Protein backbone atom coordinates (compact mmCIF):
# COMPACT_ATOMS: atom_id res chain seq x y z
CA UNK A 1 0.00 0.00 0.00
CA UNK A 2 2.94 2.30 0.73
CA UNK A 3 4.07 2.02 -2.88
CA UNK A 4 0.58 2.75 -4.19
CA UNK A 5 0.36 5.84 -1.98
CA UNK A 6 3.78 6.96 -3.18
CA UNK A 7 2.74 6.60 -6.81
CA UNK A 8 -0.56 8.40 -6.21
CA UNK A 9 1.19 11.24 -4.43
CA UNK A 10 3.85 11.53 -7.16
CA UNK A 11 1.18 11.55 -9.88
CA UNK A 12 -0.91 14.17 -8.07
CA UNK A 13 2.16 16.32 -7.46
CA UNK A 14 3.38 15.94 -11.04
CA UNK A 15 0.01 17.27 -12.22
CA UNK A 16 -0.31 19.67 -9.33
CA UNK A 17 -2.12 22.44 -11.19
CA UNK A 18 -4.90 20.11 -12.27
CA UNK A 19 -4.92 18.51 -8.82
CA UNK A 20 -5.14 21.92 -7.18
CA UNK A 21 -8.07 22.99 -9.35
CA UNK A 22 -9.90 19.75 -8.68
CA UNK A 23 -9.18 19.99 -4.96
CA UNK A 24 -10.39 23.59 -4.86
CA UNK A 25 -13.62 22.68 -6.67
CA UNK A 26 -14.42 19.90 -4.22
CA UNK A 27 -13.33 21.93 -1.19
CA UNK A 28 -15.47 24.90 -2.22
CA UNK A 29 -18.53 22.80 -2.92
CA UNK A 30 -18.23 21.34 0.59
CA UNK A 31 -17.14 24.55 2.29
CA UNK A 32 -19.92 26.83 1.09
CA UNK A 33 -22.94 24.98 2.50
CA UNK A 34 -21.06 23.79 5.60
CA UNK A 35 -19.73 27.25 6.44
CA UNK A 36 -23.14 28.81 5.85
CA UNK A 37 -24.70 26.25 8.16
CA UNK A 38 -22.09 26.81 10.87
CA UNK A 39 -22.32 30.57 10.51
CA UNK A 40 -26.10 30.68 10.69
CA UNK A 41 -26.21 28.36 13.70
CA UNK A 42 -23.50 30.38 15.41
CA UNK A 43 -25.32 33.58 14.61
CA UNK A 44 -28.58 32.14 15.87
CA UNK A 45 -26.92 31.01 19.10
CA UNK A 46 -25.40 34.46 19.68
CA UNK A 47 -28.60 36.29 18.86
CA UNK A 48 -30.67 34.00 21.02
CA UNK A 49 -28.26 34.15 23.96
CA UNK A 50 -28.39 37.93 23.95
CA UNK A 51 -32.14 37.97 23.41
CA UNK A 52 -32.68 35.55 26.28
CA UNK A 53 -30.84 37.99 28.56
CA UNK A 54 -33.27 40.74 27.57
CA UNK A 55 -36.78 39.90 28.79
CA UNK A 56 -38.67 42.85 27.24
CA UNK A 57 -37.68 45.77 25.11
CA UNK A 58 -39.67 48.98 24.79
CA UNK A 59 -39.17 51.55 22.06
CA UNK A 60 -40.87 53.71 19.52
CA UNK A 61 -43.43 52.18 17.18
CA UNK A 62 -41.82 50.87 14.02
CA UNK A 63 -39.99 47.85 12.79
CA UNK A 64 -39.65 45.40 15.70
CA UNK A 65 -36.55 43.82 14.10
CA UNK A 66 -34.88 47.24 13.97
CA UNK A 67 -35.81 47.94 17.58
CA UNK A 68 -34.46 44.59 18.77
CA UNK A 69 -31.26 44.59 16.75
CA UNK A 70 -30.54 48.27 17.41
CA UNK A 71 -30.95 47.81 21.14
CA UNK A 72 -29.13 44.47 21.41
CA UNK A 73 -26.28 45.27 19.02
CA UNK A 74 -26.00 49.03 19.50
CA UNK A 75 -26.62 49.99 15.90
CA UNK A 76 -27.23 53.69 15.33
CA UNK A 77 -31.00 53.62 15.40
CA UNK A 78 -33.27 55.18 12.80
CA UNK A 79 -36.22 54.76 15.15
CA UNK A 80 -37.77 57.73 16.87
CA UNK A 81 -36.49 58.16 20.43
CA UNK A 82 -38.78 57.59 23.37
CA UNK A 83 -38.87 60.03 26.28
CA UNK A 84 -37.21 59.27 29.58
CA UNK A 85 -40.57 59.73 31.29
CA UNK A 86 -41.56 56.39 29.73
CA UNK A 87 -38.60 54.88 31.55
CA UNK A 88 -40.04 56.15 34.80
CA UNK A 89 -43.45 54.72 33.92
CA UNK A 90 -42.01 51.30 33.14
CA UNK A 91 -39.80 51.14 36.20
CA UNK A 92 -42.52 51.28 38.81
CA UNK A 93 -43.98 48.66 41.12
CA UNK A 94 -40.82 46.62 41.37
CA UNK A 95 -40.20 46.20 37.64
CA UNK A 96 -36.75 47.14 36.46
CA UNK A 97 -36.37 49.56 33.54
CA UNK A 98 -32.91 50.09 32.06
CA UNK A 99 -32.37 52.99 29.66
CA UNK A 100 -30.46 52.62 26.42
CA UNK A 101 -29.23 55.63 24.51
CA UNK A 102 -27.35 54.71 21.33
CA UNK A 103 -26.90 57.70 19.03
CA UNK A 104 -23.26 58.76 19.21
CA UNK A 105 -19.84 57.29 18.69
CA UNK A 106 -16.35 57.74 20.01
CA UNK A 107 -13.63 57.00 17.45
CA UNK A 108 -16.26 55.10 15.50
CA UNK A 109 -17.33 52.94 18.46
CA UNK A 110 -20.95 53.21 19.66
CA UNK A 111 -21.42 55.06 22.92
CA UNK A 112 -24.10 53.35 24.98
CA UNK A 113 -25.76 55.53 27.58
CA UNK A 114 -27.32 53.36 30.25
CA UNK A 115 -27.56 52.81 33.99
CA UNK A 116 -25.56 50.58 36.36
CA UNK A 117 -28.38 47.99 36.25
CA UNK A 118 -27.42 47.21 32.67
CA UNK A 119 -24.13 45.69 33.82
CA UNK A 120 -25.92 43.61 36.45
CA UNK A 121 -28.36 42.35 33.82
CA UNK A 122 -25.56 41.30 31.49
CA UNK A 123 -23.42 39.97 34.32
CA UNK A 124 -20.65 42.29 33.13
CA UNK A 125 -17.81 43.14 35.44
CA UNK A 126 -14.86 45.47 35.11
CA UNK A 127 -11.63 43.66 34.29
CA UNK A 128 -9.85 46.78 35.47
CA UNK A 129 -10.98 50.05 37.07
CA UNK A 130 -14.64 50.62 37.86
CA UNK A 131 -17.95 50.86 36.05
CA UNK A 132 -19.03 54.41 35.10
CA UNK A 133 -20.14 55.91 38.39
CA UNK A 134 -19.70 59.60 37.60
CA UNK A 135 -20.86 61.99 34.92
CA UNK A 136 -18.18 62.04 32.23
CA UNK A 137 -16.82 58.57 32.97
CA UNK A 138 -16.66 55.92 30.28
CA UNK A 139 -16.04 52.19 30.55
CA UNK A 140 -14.68 50.38 27.51
CA UNK A 141 -15.65 47.06 26.02
CA UNK A 142 -12.73 44.60 26.01
CA UNK A 143 -12.21 44.62 22.23
CA UNK A 144 -12.45 48.41 22.05
CA UNK A 145 -9.85 48.83 24.80
CA UNK A 146 -7.49 46.50 22.97
CA UNK A 147 -8.09 48.06 19.56
CA UNK A 148 -7.78 51.68 20.74
CA UNK A 149 -4.95 50.89 23.16
CA UNK A 150 -6.72 52.61 26.03
CA UNK A 151 -6.83 51.74 29.71
CA UNK A 152 -8.09 53.18 32.95
CA UNK A 153 -7.21 56.85 33.42
CA UNK A 154 -6.88 57.57 29.70
CA UNK A 155 -9.17 59.97 27.87
CA UNK A 156 -11.62 59.24 25.06
CA UNK A 157 -13.35 61.94 23.00
CA UNK A 158 -16.81 61.50 21.57
CA UNK A 159 -16.91 62.05 17.83
CA UNK A 160 -17.67 65.62 16.81
CA UNK A 161 -21.19 65.76 15.35
CA UNK A 162 -20.70 68.77 13.09
CA UNK A 163 -17.17 69.97 12.54
CA UNK A 164 -17.99 73.48 11.25
CA UNK A 165 -21.19 74.18 13.19
CA UNK A 166 -20.25 75.91 16.44
CA UNK A 167 -23.87 75.78 17.59
CA UNK A 168 -23.52 72.02 17.96
CA UNK A 169 -22.06 70.70 21.21
CA UNK A 170 -18.31 70.09 21.16
CA UNK A 171 -16.81 66.63 21.43
CA UNK A 172 -16.84 65.53 25.06
CA UNK A 173 -13.60 64.41 26.63
CA UNK A 174 -14.43 61.39 28.79
CA UNK A 175 -12.30 59.77 31.45
CA UNK A 176 -11.82 56.03 31.07
CA UNK A 177 -12.91 54.66 34.44
CA UNK A 178 -12.53 50.99 33.56
CA UNK A 179 -12.47 48.18 31.02
CA UNK A 180 -15.07 45.39 30.89
CA UNK A 181 -14.00 41.76 30.97
CA UNK A 182 -14.35 40.15 27.51
CA UNK A 183 -17.69 38.43 26.98
CA UNK A 184 -17.80 37.71 23.20
CA UNK A 185 -20.93 39.78 22.72
CA UNK A 186 -21.67 43.20 21.29
CA UNK A 187 -20.66 44.65 24.68
CA UNK A 188 -17.03 44.01 23.71
CA UNK A 189 -17.39 46.41 20.80
CA UNK A 190 -19.00 49.38 22.57
CA UNK A 191 -18.21 51.95 25.25
CA UNK A 192 -20.61 52.68 28.08
CA UNK A 193 -21.47 55.88 29.86
CA UNK A 194 -24.16 56.93 32.26
CA UNK A 195 -27.24 57.98 30.29
CA UNK A 196 -26.81 61.54 31.63
CA UNK A 197 -23.37 61.66 30.01
CA UNK A 198 -25.01 60.64 26.73
CA UNK A 199 -27.35 63.60 27.08
CA UNK A 200 -24.32 65.87 27.63
CA UNK A 201 -22.84 64.55 24.37
CA UNK A 202 -26.18 65.26 22.69
CA UNK A 203 -26.08 68.87 24.00
CA UNK A 204 -29.24 68.60 26.07
CA UNK A 205 -27.20 68.86 29.20
CA UNK A 206 -24.16 71.09 29.44
CA UNK A 207 -21.91 73.03 31.81
CA UNK A 208 -20.42 76.48 31.60
CA UNK A 209 -19.26 79.39 33.74
CA UNK A 210 -21.72 80.88 36.24
CA UNK A 211 -24.06 83.34 34.51
CA UNK A 212 -22.99 85.98 37.01
CA UNK A 213 -19.40 85.57 35.88
CA UNK A 214 -20.19 85.67 32.17
CA UNK A 215 -18.85 88.51 30.11
CA UNK A 216 -21.66 91.09 29.70
CA UNK A 217 -21.02 91.05 25.95
CA UNK A 218 -22.28 87.44 25.79
CA UNK A 219 -25.55 88.23 27.63
CA UNK A 220 -28.57 88.43 25.33
CA UNK A 221 -31.24 88.91 27.93
CA UNK A 222 -31.92 88.57 31.62
CA UNK A 223 -35.14 88.13 33.63
CA UNK A 224 -35.62 87.44 37.28
CA UNK A 225 -35.62 83.70 36.67
CA UNK A 226 -33.53 83.17 33.53
CA UNK A 227 -30.43 84.41 31.82
CA UNK A 228 -30.05 84.10 28.01
CA UNK A 229 -26.49 83.92 26.85
CA UNK A 230 -24.94 83.90 23.38
CA UNK A 231 -23.97 80.63 21.65
CA UNK A 232 -20.48 82.02 21.69
CA UNK A 233 -20.26 81.16 25.37
CA UNK A 234 -17.74 78.33 25.62
CA UNK A 235 -19.23 75.20 27.12
CA UNK A 236 -17.09 72.78 29.05
CA UNK A 237 -15.97 69.89 26.90
CA UNK A 238 -14.75 67.88 29.86
CA UNK A 239 -16.47 67.04 33.10
CA UNK A 240 -14.17 67.47 36.07
CA UNK A 241 -14.73 67.51 39.85
CA UNK A 242 -14.37 71.28 39.64
CA UNK A 243 -17.04 71.91 37.02
CA UNK A 244 -19.39 68.96 37.48
CA UNK A 245 -21.82 71.00 39.53
CA UNK A 246 -22.28 73.45 36.67
CA UNK A 247 -23.78 70.78 34.39
CA UNK A 248 -27.50 71.10 34.06
CA UNK A 249 -30.40 70.09 31.82
CA UNK A 250 -32.32 72.45 29.61
CA UNK A 251 -35.15 70.07 28.80
CA UNK A 252 -38.02 68.64 30.83
CA UNK A 253 -37.51 64.96 31.69
CA UNK A 254 -40.31 63.85 29.38
CA UNK A 255 -38.33 65.33 26.48
CA UNK A 256 -35.05 63.59 27.28
CA UNK A 257 -34.51 61.00 24.52
CA UNK A 258 -33.80 57.29 24.87
CA UNK A 259 -33.31 54.75 22.10
CA UNK A 260 -35.02 51.94 23.97
CA UNK A 261 -35.76 50.66 27.44
CA UNK A 262 -34.95 47.16 28.62
CA UNK A 263 -37.69 46.01 30.96
CA UNK A 264 -37.20 43.24 33.48
CA UNK A 265 -40.65 42.56 34.94
CA UNK A 266 -40.83 41.17 38.44
CA UNK A 267 -42.92 38.21 37.22
CA UNK A 268 -44.79 36.89 34.18
CA UNK A 269 -48.02 38.58 35.12
CA UNK A 270 -46.31 41.93 35.46
CA UNK A 271 -44.67 41.34 32.08
CA UNK A 272 -48.01 40.64 30.46
CA UNK A 273 -49.52 43.77 31.97
CA UNK A 274 -46.62 45.91 30.84
CA UNK A 275 -46.84 44.51 27.29
CA UNK A 276 -50.56 45.15 27.16
CA UNK A 277 -50.20 48.68 28.44
CA UNK A 278 -47.33 49.72 26.20
CA UNK A 279 -48.67 48.08 23.06
CA UNK A 280 -51.98 49.86 23.61
CA UNK A 281 -50.23 53.20 23.20
CA UNK A 282 -50.06 54.77 19.79
CA UNK A 283 -46.44 55.86 20.05
CA UNK A 284 -44.59 52.97 21.64
CA UNK A 285 -44.20 49.24 21.33
CA UNK A 286 -42.78 46.54 23.54
CA UNK A 287 -41.33 43.35 22.15
CA UNK A 288 -40.08 40.03 23.49
CA UNK A 289 -36.60 39.80 21.94
CA UNK A 290 -36.55 35.96 21.90
CA UNK A 291 -39.78 35.92 19.86
CA UNK A 292 -38.39 38.54 17.47
CA UNK A 293 -35.17 36.59 17.02
CA UNK A 294 -37.17 33.39 16.46
CA UNK A 295 -39.13 35.12 13.70
CA UNK A 296 -35.94 36.55 12.23
CA UNK A 297 -34.22 33.16 12.22
CA UNK A 298 -37.26 31.50 10.68
CA UNK A 299 -36.90 33.94 7.80
CA UNK A 300 -33.17 33.28 7.62
CA UNK A 301 -33.74 29.52 7.58
CA UNK A 302 -36.25 29.85 4.75
CA UNK A 303 -33.56 31.64 2.78
CA UNK A 304 -31.06 28.99 3.80
CA UNK A 305 -33.31 26.29 2.35
CA UNK A 306 -33.06 28.01 -1.02
CA UNK A 307 -29.31 28.35 -0.59
CA UNK A 308 -29.07 24.65 0.34
CA UNK A 309 -30.84 23.76 -2.90
CA UNK A 310 -28.31 25.78 -4.86
CA UNK A 311 -25.53 24.12 -2.89
CA UNK A 312 -26.89 20.70 -3.76
CA UNK A 313 -26.91 21.62 -7.45
CA UNK A 314 -23.34 22.88 -7.06
CA UNK A 315 -22.31 19.64 -5.32
CA UNK A 316 -23.86 17.51 -8.07
CA UNK A 317 -22.10 19.64 -10.70
CA UNK A 318 -18.82 19.19 -8.89
CA UNK A 319 -19.41 15.45 -8.61
CA UNK A 320 -20.05 15.24 -12.35
CA UNK A 321 -16.92 17.31 -12.97
CA UNK A 322 -14.88 14.97 -10.77
CA UNK A 323 -16.30 11.96 -12.63
CA UNK A 324 -15.37 13.56 -15.95
CA UNK A 325 -11.86 14.27 -14.70
CA UNK A 326 -11.48 10.69 -13.44
CA UNK A 327 -12.70 9.31 -16.78
CA UNK A 328 -10.34 11.56 -18.74
CA UNK A 329 -7.53 10.68 -16.37
CA UNK A 330 -8.16 6.96 -16.91
CA UNK A 331 -8.02 7.58 -20.63
CA UNK A 332 -4.80 9.56 -20.37
CA UNK A 333 -3.24 6.95 -18.12
CA UNK A 334 -4.26 4.00 -20.28
CA UNK A 335 -0.66 3.55 -21.49
CA UNK A 336 0.66 3.64 -17.94
CA UNK A 337 -1.90 1.08 -16.83
CA UNK A 338 -1.04 -1.14 -19.80
CA UNK A 339 2.60 -1.05 -18.72
CA UNK A 340 1.66 -2.02 -15.17
CA UNK A 341 -0.58 -4.73 -16.60
CA UNK A 342 2.28 -6.13 -18.71
CA UNK A 343 4.62 -6.02 -15.74
CA UNK A 344 2.21 -8.19 -13.77
CA UNK A 345 0.60 -5.62 -11.53
CA UNK A 346 -2.74 -6.95 -10.24
CA UNK A 347 -6.05 -5.40 -11.27
CA UNK A 348 -6.70 -4.66 -7.62
CA UNK A 349 -3.49 -2.64 -7.41
CA UNK A 350 -4.45 -0.67 -10.51
CA UNK A 351 -7.82 0.04 -8.92
CA UNK A 352 -6.03 1.04 -5.72
CA UNK A 353 -3.86 3.48 -7.69
CA UNK A 354 -6.94 5.30 -8.96
CA UNK A 355 -8.75 5.04 -5.65
CA UNK A 356 -5.78 6.30 -3.67
CA UNK A 357 -5.52 9.38 -5.82
CA UNK A 358 -9.25 10.08 -5.57
CA UNK A 359 -9.10 9.55 -1.80
CA UNK A 360 -6.04 11.80 -1.62
CA UNK A 361 -7.73 14.61 -3.53
CA UNK A 362 -11.02 14.19 -1.67
CA UNK A 363 -9.19 13.93 1.65
CA UNK A 364 -7.21 17.11 1.08
CA UNK A 365 -10.38 18.82 -0.18
CA UNK A 366 -12.32 17.81 2.91
CA UNK A 367 -9.44 18.82 5.17
CA UNK A 368 -9.29 22.23 3.46
CA UNK A 369 -13.06 22.60 3.64
CA UNK A 370 -12.97 21.56 7.31
CA UNK A 371 -10.23 24.08 8.07
CA UNK A 372 -12.21 26.71 6.19
CA UNK A 373 -15.38 25.92 8.11
CA UNK A 374 -13.45 26.06 11.37
CA UNK A 375 -11.92 29.41 10.40
CA UNK A 376 -15.33 30.68 9.32
CA UNK A 377 -16.82 29.61 12.63
CA UNK A 378 -13.94 31.24 14.45
CA UNK A 379 -13.67 34.58 12.64
CA UNK A 380 -16.70 35.17 10.44
CA UNK A 381 -19.12 35.82 13.34
CA UNK A 382 -16.82 38.67 14.40
CA UNK A 383 -16.81 39.92 10.83
CA UNK A 384 -20.60 39.73 10.64
CA UNK A 385 -20.81 41.57 13.94
CA UNK A 386 -18.52 44.28 12.58
CA UNK A 387 -20.64 44.59 9.45
Amino acid at each position, binding site marked *: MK*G*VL*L*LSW*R*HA*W*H*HRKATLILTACIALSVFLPAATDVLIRDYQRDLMARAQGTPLLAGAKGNRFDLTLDALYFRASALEPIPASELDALGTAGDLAIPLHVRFTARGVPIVGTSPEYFELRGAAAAEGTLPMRLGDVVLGATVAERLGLSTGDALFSDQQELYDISRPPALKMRVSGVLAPCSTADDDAVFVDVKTAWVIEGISHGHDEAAAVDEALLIGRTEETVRVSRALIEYNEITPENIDSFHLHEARELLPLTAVIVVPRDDKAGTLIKARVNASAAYQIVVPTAVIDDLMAFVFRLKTVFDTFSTVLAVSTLLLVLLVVMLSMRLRA*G*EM*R*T*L*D*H*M*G*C*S*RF*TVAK*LYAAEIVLVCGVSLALAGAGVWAAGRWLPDLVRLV
Partner: protein
Amino acid sequence: MIATSAERTAAPSPGDGGGPMVSLEGVRFAYGDGGFALGIERLTIARGEHVACIGPSGTGKTTLVNLIAGIVVPSAGRVTLDGAVISALADDERRAARIATIGMVFQQFELLDYLSTLENVLLPYHVSSRLVLDDNVQRRALDLVEATGIGHALERRPAQLSQGERQRVALCRALVTQPRLVICDEPTGNLDPDTAGTTLDLLFEQVRRGGATLLMVTHDHGLLDRFDRTVDMRELAAP
Protein backbone atom coordinates in the same frame (compact mmCIF):
# COMPACT_ATOMS: atom_id res chain seq x y z
CA MET B 1 24.58 -17.79 -38.26
CA ILE B 2 20.83 -17.75 -37.86
CA ALA B 3 19.38 -20.90 -36.41
CA THR B 4 15.75 -20.98 -37.42
CA SER B 5 14.59 -24.23 -35.94
CA ALA B 6 12.09 -23.88 -33.17
CA GLU B 7 13.02 -27.29 -31.98
CA ARG B 8 16.63 -26.53 -31.20
CA THR B 9 17.33 -25.86 -27.55
CA ALA B 10 20.39 -24.77 -25.68
CA ALA B 11 21.75 -26.65 -22.74
CA PRO B 12 20.08 -25.87 -19.43
CA SER B 13 21.94 -23.46 -17.18
CA PRO B 14 24.00 -25.04 -14.48
CA GLY B 15 22.23 -25.18 -11.18
CA ASP B 16 18.68 -24.81 -12.47
CA GLY B 17 15.88 -27.23 -11.70
CA GLY B 18 15.96 -28.76 -15.13
CA GLY B 19 13.33 -28.43 -17.86
CA PRO B 20 12.96 -25.54 -20.27
CA MET B 21 12.30 -21.98 -19.19
CA VAL B 22 9.57 -21.62 -21.78
CA SER B 23 7.65 -24.14 -23.76
CA LEU B 24 4.66 -23.83 -26.09
CA GLU B 25 2.86 -26.90 -27.39
CA GLY B 26 0.03 -26.94 -29.90
CA VAL B 27 -0.84 -23.35 -29.14
CA ARG B 28 -3.69 -21.66 -30.98
CA PHE B 29 -4.58 -18.06 -30.44
CA ALA B 30 -6.85 -15.59 -32.19
CA TYR B 31 -7.85 -12.08 -31.26
CA GLY B 32 -11.51 -11.59 -30.48
CA ASP B 33 -12.19 -9.49 -33.55
CA GLY B 34 -11.40 -12.48 -35.71
CA GLY B 35 -8.47 -10.74 -37.37
CA PHE B 36 -5.03 -12.03 -36.54
CA ALA B 37 -4.57 -15.69 -35.58
CA LEU B 38 -1.46 -17.52 -34.52
CA GLY B 39 -0.65 -21.20 -34.28
CA ILE B 40 2.56 -22.61 -32.81
CA GLU B 41 3.08 -26.36 -32.78
CA ARG B 42 6.13 -26.36 -30.58
CA LEU B 43 8.64 -23.88 -29.18
CA THR B 44 11.06 -24.45 -26.34
CA ILE B 45 13.50 -21.98 -24.81
CA ALA B 46 16.01 -23.45 -22.41
CA ARG B 47 17.13 -21.84 -19.20
CA GLY B 48 19.91 -19.35 -19.76
CA GLU B 49 19.37 -19.38 -23.49
CA HIS B 50 19.50 -16.11 -25.44
CA VAL B 51 16.94 -16.22 -28.22
CA ALA B 52 16.13 -13.65 -30.88
CA CYS B 53 12.68 -13.56 -32.41
CA ILE B 54 12.48 -12.13 -35.91
CA GLY B 55 9.92 -11.81 -38.61
CA PRO B 56 8.07 -9.18 -40.59
CA SER B 57 5.43 -7.05 -38.96
CA GLY B 58 2.16 -8.91 -38.47
CA THR B 59 3.65 -12.38 -38.08
CA GLY B 60 2.87 -12.57 -34.34
CA LYS B 61 6.11 -11.67 -32.55
CA THR B 62 4.36 -9.54 -29.95
CA THR B 63 1.57 -12.09 -29.63
CA LEU B 64 4.18 -14.75 -28.93
CA VAL B 65 5.67 -12.56 -26.20
CA ASN B 66 2.20 -11.94 -24.75
CA LEU B 67 1.46 -15.68 -24.73
CA ILE B 68 4.73 -16.50 -22.97
CA ALA B 69 4.18 -13.72 -20.41
CA GLY B 70 0.62 -14.82 -19.76
CA ILE B 71 -0.77 -11.48 -20.88
CA VAL B 72 -3.05 -13.39 -23.22
CA VAL B 73 -4.05 -17.05 -23.05
CA PRO B 74 -4.32 -19.43 -25.96
CA SER B 75 -7.62 -20.90 -27.04
CA ALA B 76 -5.87 -24.26 -27.37
CA GLY B 77 -2.53 -25.76 -26.42
CA ARG B 78 -0.24 -25.26 -23.49
CA VAL B 79 2.24 -22.54 -22.49
CA THR B 80 4.69 -23.42 -19.75
CA LEU B 81 6.78 -20.80 -17.97
CA ASP B 82 9.48 -21.81 -15.51
CA GLY B 83 7.83 -25.16 -14.97
CA ALA B 84 4.31 -23.80 -14.46
CA VAL B 85 1.56 -24.14 -17.06
CA ILE B 86 0.88 -20.43 -17.21
CA SER B 87 -1.87 -20.81 -19.79
CA ALA B 88 -3.90 -22.79 -17.25
CA LEU B 89 -3.56 -20.28 -14.44
CA ALA B 90 -6.14 -17.70 -13.41
CA ASP B 91 -5.51 -14.07 -14.31
CA ASP B 92 -4.24 -13.12 -10.85
CA GLU B 93 -1.88 -16.10 -10.76
CA ARG B 94 -0.53 -15.29 -14.23
CA ARG B 95 0.14 -11.72 -13.13
CA ALA B 96 1.89 -12.95 -9.99
CA ALA B 97 4.00 -15.36 -12.05
CA ARG B 98 4.81 -12.61 -14.52
CA ILE B 99 6.04 -10.07 -12.02
CA ALA B 100 8.04 -12.71 -10.14
CA THR B 101 9.59 -14.40 -13.14
CA ILE B 102 9.80 -12.00 -16.06
CA GLY B 103 11.48 -8.67 -16.64
CA MET B 104 10.08 -6.85 -19.64
CA VAL B 105 11.67 -4.14 -21.79
CA PHE B 106 9.43 -2.33 -24.26
CA GLN B 107 10.22 -0.49 -27.46
CA GLN B 108 8.62 2.73 -26.13
CA PHE B 109 10.37 2.30 -22.75
CA GLU B 110 7.01 2.74 -20.94
CA LEU B 111 8.45 4.73 -18.06
CA LEU B 112 6.09 6.59 -15.75
CA ASP B 113 6.67 10.27 -16.45
CA TYR B 114 5.95 11.36 -12.87
CA LEU B 115 8.55 9.11 -11.25
CA SER B 116 12.27 9.68 -10.89
CA THR B 117 14.82 7.33 -12.42
CA LEU B 118 15.26 5.38 -9.20
CA GLU B 119 11.51 5.19 -8.57
CA ASN B 120 10.95 3.93 -12.12
CA VAL B 121 13.60 1.27 -11.61
CA LEU B 122 11.92 0.19 -8.38
CA LEU B 123 8.43 0.32 -9.88
CA PRO B 124 7.79 -3.47 -9.68
CA TYR B 125 8.32 -3.26 -5.93
CA HIS B 126 5.92 -0.32 -5.61
CA VAL B 127 3.07 -2.08 -7.40
CA SER B 128 3.41 -5.64 -6.15
CA SER B 129 2.69 -6.82 -2.65
CA ARG B 130 4.62 -10.02 -3.45
CA LEU B 131 7.91 -8.19 -3.86
CA VAL B 132 9.55 -6.74 -0.77
CA LEU B 133 11.45 -3.50 -1.11
CA ASP B 134 14.31 -3.73 1.36
CA ASP B 135 17.85 -2.39 1.65
CA ASN B 136 19.23 -5.18 -0.54
CA VAL B 137 16.85 -4.29 -3.35
CA GLN B 138 17.68 -0.60 -2.99
CA ARG B 139 21.38 -1.45 -3.17
CA ARG B 140 20.82 -3.69 -6.19
CA ALA B 141 18.88 -0.93 -7.95
CA LEU B 142 21.65 1.56 -7.27
CA ASP B 143 24.27 -0.93 -8.50
CA LEU B 144 22.27 -1.44 -11.68
CA VAL B 145 21.89 2.25 -12.46
CA GLU B 146 25.59 2.77 -11.77
CA ALA B 147 26.52 -0.20 -13.96
CA THR B 148 24.36 1.11 -16.80
CA GLY B 149 25.82 4.59 -16.54
CA ILE B 150 22.76 6.53 -15.34
CA GLY B 151 23.84 6.94 -11.74
CA HIS B 152 24.06 10.69 -12.28
CA ALA B 153 20.35 10.88 -13.16
CA LEU B 154 18.76 9.21 -10.16
CA GLU B 155 16.37 12.05 -9.36
CA ARG B 156 15.56 13.03 -12.93
CA ARG B 157 12.19 12.48 -14.54
CA PRO B 158 12.00 10.63 -17.90
CA ALA B 159 11.39 13.94 -19.68
CA GLN B 160 14.82 15.05 -18.51
CA LEU B 161 16.58 11.97 -19.91
CA SER B 162 17.87 11.17 -23.39
CA GLN B 163 16.38 8.28 -25.37
CA GLY B 164 19.35 6.06 -24.52
CA GLU B 165 19.12 6.91 -20.84
CA ARG B 166 15.41 6.14 -20.81
CA GLN B 167 16.01 2.74 -22.34
CA ARG B 168 18.66 2.04 -19.72
CA VAL B 169 16.17 2.94 -16.99
CA ALA B 170 13.71 0.50 -18.59
CA LEU B 171 16.47 -2.11 -18.69
CA CYS B 172 17.27 -1.61 -14.99
CA ARG B 173 13.55 -1.87 -14.16
CA ALA B 174 13.37 -5.20 -15.98
CA LEU B 175 16.44 -6.55 -14.21
CA VAL B 176 15.97 -5.25 -10.68
CA THR B 177 13.69 -8.15 -9.69
CA GLN B 178 16.40 -10.60 -10.79
CA PRO B 179 14.02 -12.24 -13.29
CA ARG B 180 14.66 -15.70 -14.64
CA LEU B 181 13.37 -14.57 -18.03
CA VAL B 182 14.00 -11.22 -19.69
CA ILE B 183 11.70 -10.37 -22.59
CA CYS B 184 12.59 -7.42 -24.80
CA ASP B 185 10.20 -6.21 -27.49
CA GLU B 186 12.35 -4.31 -30.00
CA PRO B 187 14.28 -2.54 -27.24
CA THR B 188 16.55 -0.67 -29.64
CA GLY B 189 13.89 0.27 -32.18
CA ASN B 190 13.89 3.92 -31.08
CA LEU B 191 17.64 4.28 -30.58
CA ASP B 192 20.40 5.39 -32.91
CA PRO B 193 22.92 2.66 -33.83
CA ASP B 194 25.61 3.74 -31.37
CA THR B 195 23.19 4.03 -28.46
CA ALA B 196 21.53 0.77 -29.49
CA GLY B 197 24.87 -1.00 -29.46
CA THR B 198 25.79 0.32 -26.03
CA THR B 199 22.36 -0.56 -24.65
CA LEU B 200 22.58 -4.11 -25.98
CA ASP B 201 26.05 -4.54 -24.53
CA LEU B 202 24.65 -3.57 -21.16
CA LEU B 203 21.64 -5.82 -21.60
CA PHE B 204 23.70 -8.88 -22.46
CA GLU B 205 26.19 -8.18 -19.70
CA GLN B 206 23.47 -7.85 -17.05
CA VAL B 207 21.46 -10.82 -18.33
CA ARG B 208 24.56 -12.97 -18.40
CA ARG B 209 25.57 -11.82 -14.93
CA GLY B 210 22.13 -12.78 -13.58
CA GLY B 211 22.06 -16.06 -15.49
CA ALA B 212 18.68 -15.14 -16.95
CA THR B 213 17.05 -16.42 -20.11
CA LEU B 214 16.66 -13.80 -22.82
CA LEU B 215 14.00 -13.54 -25.49
CA MET B 216 14.30 -10.51 -27.73
CA VAL B 217 12.01 -9.44 -30.53
CA THR B 218 14.02 -7.53 -33.11
CA HIS B 219 14.01 -6.37 -36.68
CA ASP B 220 17.74 -5.81 -36.69
CA HIS B 221 19.34 -8.84 -38.32
CA GLY B 222 22.75 -7.41 -37.55
CA LEU B 223 22.26 -8.33 -33.92
CA LEU B 224 21.49 -11.98 -34.44
CA ASP B 225 25.10 -13.17 -34.02
CA ARG B 226 24.89 -12.16 -30.39
CA PHE B 227 22.15 -14.73 -29.66
CA ASP B 228 22.36 -18.46 -29.11
CA ARG B 229 19.46 -18.98 -31.43
CA THR B 230 16.96 -17.20 -33.60
CA VAL B 231 13.29 -17.97 -33.98
CA ASP B 232 11.77 -16.82 -37.26
CA MET B 233 8.06 -16.33 -36.88
CA ARG B 234 7.48 -17.12 -40.56
CA GLU B 235 8.75 -20.67 -39.93
CA LEU B 236 7.46 -21.04 -36.38
CA ALA B 237 3.88 -19.99 -36.92
CA ALA B 238 1.57 -22.69 -38.18
CA PRO B 239 -0.78 -21.69 -41.01
